[in-house]
C-alpha cells in the first residue's frame, strides 16, 4: 500500500504541476456536466413546482409555471407547524451528530492505535448492528424506552432525548469504521512524536490525530447529521406533536382532502436551505483539510 514514507523533507518546489492533458479536460467537462444535470433535474422540479399554483402542479408537467406564485411559501407555515418541526429536527440532528462523532472518535482511536483483546469482536459486533432491519428492533427499543421511563422516570419515549440517543447509535457504527480508516492513514510516527513530546495518548489524539483527520471527521459528521435528519420510521413512532421532526412532519402536506405538492416542494426547499448553507461552510473546511495535511 503506498503510504507516505518518511520523506518529510520539503521536496515541494515552485515548479507548477504538469498541465492536464486535453483528453482529461474533456472527460472532466462531460462527466461533470452529466452529473450536474442528473443532480439538478429533480431540484429543478422542486423549485419550479414550488412556484406554481396547485392546479398547475396537478396537471401535465411544464417547464415554466403558467403563473408565478409565492403563495406556497406562505401557506407552508399554516398547513403544518413547520417551524416547530424544523427546530426539533435541528436540535435532534445536531445533538446526535456531536455526540456520535465524539463517541466515535474515541472508539476509532482505540481500534486504530491499540491492539487489545476483544478489538476485533468489538468492531465486528458494532458493524453487525447495521444488519438488522430497523423495523424489527423498533418495537423492542420502544419497550425498553418505556420501561426505562417507568423505572427511572427518565422520559425517553416521545422526547427528543430518546430520539437523539437512537440516532446517535444509528450513525455510530459507520462513523467508527470510517474514522478507523482515516486514522489508519495517518502515519503513526506522528503520534509517536507527540508522545515523545510528553503528551499522553489522549493528548496525542487531540493534538495530532484529530487535526490531521479533520476532513474525515467532517465527512463523518455530515453522515451522522443526515442520518438523523432524514430518518422516518423511528421518528414516526417515537415522537409526538411537540417533538415531531421534519422527516415525518413533511408528510403532513399530504392531507385527507388534498396533497399539496407545491407546498411539499416549497417546504422541502425552505428547510433544506440552511443545511445546504452548512454544507457550503463545510466545503471550506474540507479544503482546509488540505492545509492540515501539509503538516506531514
Amino acid at each position, binding site marked *: 500500500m503506498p503510504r507516505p514514507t518518511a520523506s518529510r523533507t520539503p521536496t515541494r518546489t515552485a515548479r507548477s504541476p504538469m498541465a492536464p492533458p486535453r483528453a482529461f479536460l474533456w472527460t472532466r467537462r462531460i462527466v461533470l456536466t452529466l452529473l450536474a444535470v442528473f443532480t439538478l433535474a429533480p431540484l429543478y422540479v422542486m423549485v419550479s413546482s414550488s412556484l406554481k399554483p396547485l392546479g398547475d402542479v396537478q396537471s401535465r408537467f411544464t417547464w415554466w409555471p403558467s403563473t408565478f406564485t409565492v403563495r406556497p411559501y406562505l401557506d407552508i407555515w399554516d398547513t403544518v407547524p413547520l417551524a416547530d418541526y424544523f427546530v426539533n429536527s435541528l436540535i435532534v440532528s445536531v445533538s446526535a451528530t456531536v455526540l456520535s462523532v465524539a463517541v466515535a472518535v474515541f472508539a476509532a482511536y482505540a481500534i486504530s492505535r491499540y491492539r487489545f483483546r476483544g478489538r476485533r469482536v468489538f468492531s465486528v459486533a458494532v458493524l453487525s*448492528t447495521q444488519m438488522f432491519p430497523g423495523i424489527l428492533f423498533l418495537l423492542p427499543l420502544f419497550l425498553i424506552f418505556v420501561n426505562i421511563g417507568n423505572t427511572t422516570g427518565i422520559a425517553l419515549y416521545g422526547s427528543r432525548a430518546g430520539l437523539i440517543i437512537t440516532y446517535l447509535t444509528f450513525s455510530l457504527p459507520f462513523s467508527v469504521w470510517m474514522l478507523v480508516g482515516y486514522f489508519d492513514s495517518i502515519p503513526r510516527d506522528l503520534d509517536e512524536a507527540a508522545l515523545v513530546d510528553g503528551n499522553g495518548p489522549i493528548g496525542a489524539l487531540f493534538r495530532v490525530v484529530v487535526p490531521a483527520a479533520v476532513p474525515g471527521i467532517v465527512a463523518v459528521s455530515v453522515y451522522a447529521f443526515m442520518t438523523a435528519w432524514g430518518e422516518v420510521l423511528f421518528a414516526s413512532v417515537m415522537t409526538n406533536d411537540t417533538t415531531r421532526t421534519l422527516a415525518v412532519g413533511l408528510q403532513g402536506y399530504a392531507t385527507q382532502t388534498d396533497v399539496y405538492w407545491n407546498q411539499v416542494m416549497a417546504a422541502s426547499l425552505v428547510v433544506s436551505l440552511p443545511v445546504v448553507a452548512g454544507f457550503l461552510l463545510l466545503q471550506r473546511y474540507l479544503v482546509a483539510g488540505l492545509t492540515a495535511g501539509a503538516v506531514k
Partner: protein
Amino acid sequence: MPAAAKVRPRADHPRPVAPPPRERPARRLTARLRGPALPYLLILPALALELLIHIVPMAVGIGMSFLELTQFSIRDWTTAPGAGLDNYRLAIDFNAPVGQELLHSFWITCAYTLLSVGLSWLLGTAAAVLTQGPFPGRGLLRTLFLVPYALPVYAAVITWSFLLQRDNGLLNHVIVDQLHLTHDRPFWLLGGNSFFAIVVVSVWRSWPFAFLALTAALQNIPRDLYEAAALDGAGMWQQIRRITLPSLRPVNQVLLLVLFLWTFNDFNTPYVLFGRSAPAEADLISIHIYESSFVTWNFGTGSAMSVLLLLFLLVVTAGYLLATRRRTADA
C-alpha cells in the same frame, strides 16, 4: 480472527505499555494505570450505547422470532404461544407463497443493492477525482453535488415520484412530448421499470455520500507523491491510476461496505417512493418485511425473516472483510 490481525503489521504503533524511558516514575504510574485499560475506556461509551439501542433490542427481536406474536398477544408477550422454528419454516418454505415472495424479494434486493452501490461508488469516485484539481466553478459544483444528500429523504423521494409519474411527470414529458422517442407513455413506478426507478433514486441519494467520503480521503494523499510521479514522467491518467486510486483503498473498503449495508436495509427510499406496498418488480426486502410484520400484525414471522437477513448480511460482510484484508495485505 488472529489471522487478520497478523497480516497487518503494527510494529510502528505506540504501545502504551512501553512508555519512553525518559518519563518520570509518577508519570509512568499513571501511564500504566491508563495503559491496558485505556482502549476499553475509549470504547466504553460506544459499547454502552450500542448495547442499549441495538444489541439488546436485537436480542429481543431474535427472541420474537420464536414466538407466535400477533395481534392476540402483542399486548402481553407472555401470552404469546411459542412457535419453535415455525416462523423460520414458513419463511424458507420456498414452495409456499410466503417463502416464494420472500425469496423473490431477496433476489430483487440483491440486484438492487449491487447496481445501486456500484453506480454510486462509480459516480462518487469519478466526481471526486475529477474535482480534485482546481478549476473555475469547482466549489459551486462540489456544493451542488452534495445537495441531494442535504434534502430530507421524504422531500427528495417524493420529488422523484412526482417527476416519474406517467401522465404528468417531467420524464415522460421530455421523452414523449418533447423528444418523441416513444408514442406510448411508459410507466416508471409500475412494472419492470419500477426497478430501474428505485435504483436511480437510490443512486441519486447515495452517490453524494461516496463523493464526500472520497473527496475527504483525497485530501490525505500527500502532494509529494504526485510531484515525484510527475518528475518520473507519469501523466495525469497514470497518476490517477498509480497514486490516487490505490491510496483510496482503505476508505473504499469501508465505504463500499457502508453503502452495501445501507442500501440493502434502506427502508425510507422505497417506502416513500411506493408507499406501503411496492410493485413486485421492486419489492425490496425492508418493505417486504414491514408489510409481513407491521402491517399484518405478524411480528414473529417478520422477526424470523429479519434474522435470516441478518445471517446473510453477516456472512457477506465477514467474507468481504476477509477478502479485502487479504488483498490489502498483498498489495
